[in-house]
């Protein structure tokens, strides 16, 4: 029997840490173990490494290094941005605007703020998952203190009109935060040109290590601390710096941004071939926007069958994929993103997300296109919902 294949198509869940990133990190786990807050040379070596990474992030998103704060990842950055701005600006107002397709790391802090006396507007999206800038403009009130709209959606890959939304927020004098966890390293970003005041990113989505990210905070933004304690990160985020992680983040963002154009061209070609191949399966539909989507995202709905059983069968063929967000796979709730896009309730369970990466090959794509129709057929033969014309003849 041939060796079991191993095709990783879940790069939106996490990416493989690049060997160059690992090499950059290693010395900071071994010889350069010093605490950046210490005065002696050991400590100063670590401090320099952290400041170099800060510079790398600043360069990647077009901000000043003093506006970059390292965190433990995307969830912390989102929590900090939302709660921090809410509590620092509540004298001005208690109204926040976000969308109905945000990651749970944005939706849940917003819901928690409601329990603390804040008011949150969850904007609807169109069938492709796009939030219209006009709806943002229409929702802004006198007491609005923050707009938080994701850069690109993690499930369906739709890229939002961020520069337009940013311009509206700037004009109205409301802070604009974007959860750019899925976008950084994959979409060109410039916080000044796009009028972004706060931006969350996470290293493991662009071949960096897990457990480290950062929040960009424009220098004039009023924000409370989330983590109280020592004076790290210019007294805004306590805790001894995760030096190897931060070094890895810096190396990874530097690498991803410089390779972005080339890499996107290659991945997008594979993505389009995969979408085209899978849509030949009858009663299938592409979720998300046909063109305005992340270069690596394929999300397809197959009628009459359920997503988890597709994943289990794909896994038997060595293909790693997801039904939507990795974070919700343990729960039974249908995807809030697909529901918000108006996908009927009886169809939201049959979606499959394949997210390609730098290592995805033409052969991988061909293999998935070859395997998946059989899997769909097998499950449809099993389903009481399948119309007779789609069933195998006995």
């Amino acid at each position, binding site marked *: 029997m041939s060796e079991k294949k191993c095709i990783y198509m879940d790069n939106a869940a996490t990416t493989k840490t690049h060997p160059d990133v690992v090499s950059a990190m290693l010395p900071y786990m071994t010889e350069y173990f010093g605490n950046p807050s210490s005065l002696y040379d050991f400590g100063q070596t670590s401090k320099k490494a952290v400041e170099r990474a800060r510079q790398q992030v600043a360069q990647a998103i077009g901000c000043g290094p003093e506006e970059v704060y390292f965190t433990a990842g995307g969830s912390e950055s989102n929590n900090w941005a939302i709660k921090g701005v809410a509590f620092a600006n509540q004298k001005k107002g208690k109204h926040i605007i976000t969308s109905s397709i945000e990651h749970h790391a944005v939706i849940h802090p917003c819901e928690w703020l409601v329990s603390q006396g804040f008011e949150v507007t969850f904007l609807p999206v169109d069938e492709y998952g796009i939030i219209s800038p006009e709806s943002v403009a229409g929702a802004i009130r006198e007491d609005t203190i923050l707009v938080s709209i994701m850069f690109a959606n993690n499930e369906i890959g739709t890229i939002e009109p961020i520069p337009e939304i940013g311009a509206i927020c700037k004009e109205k004098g409301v802070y604009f935060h974007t959860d750019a966890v899925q976008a950084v390293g994959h979409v060109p970003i410039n916080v000044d040109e796009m009028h972004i005041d706060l931006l969350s990113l996470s290293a493991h989505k662009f071949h960096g290590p897990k457990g480290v990210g950062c929040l960009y905070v424009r220098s004039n933004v009023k924000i409370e601390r989330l983590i109280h304690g020592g004076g790290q990160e210019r007294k805004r985020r306590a805790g001894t710096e995760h030096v190897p992680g931060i070094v890895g983040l810096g190396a990874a963002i530097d690498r991803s941004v410089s390779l972005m154009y080339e890499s996107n061209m290659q991945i997008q070609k594979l993505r389009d071939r995969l979408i085209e191949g899978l849509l030949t399966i009858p009663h299938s539909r592409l979720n998300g926007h046909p063109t305005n989507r992340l270069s690596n995202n394929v999300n397809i709905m197959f009628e009459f069958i*359920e997503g988890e059983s597709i994943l289990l069968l794909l896994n038997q063929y060595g293909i790693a994929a997801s039904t939507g967000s990795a974070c919700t796979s343990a729960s039974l709730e249908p995807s809030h993103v697909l529901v918000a896009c108006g996908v009927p309730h009886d169809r939201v369970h049959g979606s499959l997300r394949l997210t390609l990466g730098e290592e995805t090959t033409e052969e991988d794509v061909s293999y998935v296109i070859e395997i998946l129709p059989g899997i769909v057929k097998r499950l449809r033969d*099993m389903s009481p919902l399948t119309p007779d014309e789609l069933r195998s003849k006995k």
Partner: protein
Amino acid sequence: MYSEQVMDHFMNPRNQGRLLNANGIGEVGNATCGDIMKIYLFIVDSVIEDVAFETFGCGAAIASSSMATELIKGKTVDEAWSLSNKAVAQALDGLPPQKIHCSILAEEAIHAAINDYLRRSDLPERKE
């Protein structure tokens, strides 16, 4: 996440399909929740001579249907009625907590199919 038993019944489902001569059919669940189970019974002299299932759902739902049909095949209607969801889950060497409802669905689908048979035979339906 799943036991070997669950994976075996998911990969090689027993009694999967439709039963053209079924005299008791039960369908439970709905597509909105992500699970539909349909059980076909062919009952002769109060014995389940043949059984089949069709399921729309996750791996645990398919495995629970497959196992449940195995457990009632050749049994009397009384025995099949008393098959509990716990027995289905146990026979599968356990299910993850969030998937226990799949075994409950299997029990309910069998009850629905038996009641359908009783209705067709002009016999009083059973209560849960």
